[in-house]
């Protein structure tokens, strides 16, 4: 497969378009090895992307469809509850496992 490497200005514009369209993963996947190394080492690219991100916020964040805050709060509450349960669960499971393994050890010891 032939790889056509884009110049840094093309990469900046493609990054800007991907960010505007919410398609950053596609942009990342489209990078060739050469382009990726150019992006990482280019100071101009880093400078340009900062401006692009700011323009993206100012130009498009207001037009995006955002959820209702009350609905979002219930999502956050659910996430917090789920995390608390998860945090409590391994401890309970861990102690049960310890008990079980202790029991097994006990049996083994008896047999011996």
């Amino acid at each position, binding site marked *: 497969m032939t790889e056509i490497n884009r110049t840094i200005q093309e990469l900046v514009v493609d990054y800007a378009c991907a960010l505007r369209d*919410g398609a950053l993963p596609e942009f990342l996947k489209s990078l060739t090895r050469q382009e990726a190394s150019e992006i990482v080492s280019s100071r101009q690219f880093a400078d340009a992307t900062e401006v692009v*991100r700011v323009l*993206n916020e100012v130009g*498009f*964040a207001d037009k995006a469809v955002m959820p209702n805050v009350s609905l979002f709060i219930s999502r*956050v*509450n659910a996430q917090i509850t789920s995390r608390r349960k998860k945090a409590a669960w391994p401890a309970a499971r861990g102690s049960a496992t310890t008990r079980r393994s202790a029991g097994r050890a006990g049996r083994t010891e008896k047999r011996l």
Partner: protein
Amino acid sequence: MDRRLRKSLKGLTDPDLQRRQRAMESFVRYTFGRFIKCLYRYLGNEVECEDVLENVYADIWADPTALANVTDERLLVRTVYLYYMRKRLREVYRRLNRNLHLSQQGLQNLVAPEIGVLESMSENELCETLQQMLGKLKARERKAIELWMQGMSMRAIANELKTTVGAVKMLKFRTILKLKELARTMKIGVE
């Protein structure tokens, strides 16, 4: 900072669970709009913004200590970005990294970089500064940026400016760098 926001920030560390929950609810209500806009800057996708922000709030709930010394809105956004958002933003694309040519570090810097001069400004300051900077551009450069911000494609902008797509890309790149330079020279840096 708004008095109620300050109160809710204080309430996040309250030992009483119910009071803490109320504070969290109020905190989400006050900061949701600002935080989601901040995330939109890096993701450009509402669905991903919501998912990341949900985790960010849950992280704040789990450990709100980083917000203890926050005194104004700008510092709040900055602290939340540095301590909570950046980690989550990086996670969003980390799963892609197996198939990418970017190194882990390169990906992190691209997706959730260090906070820059423009990015550390408050919303109002940012709009004002951008207006000033756009006013200093040449007419053609300004038009290219404005058309792009209206959502037009490169081809459409090229047609509008009666030039080629390649020329528009070059113009846009140069204009963006010029904006960055203007931001530097206007000495709008924070800190």
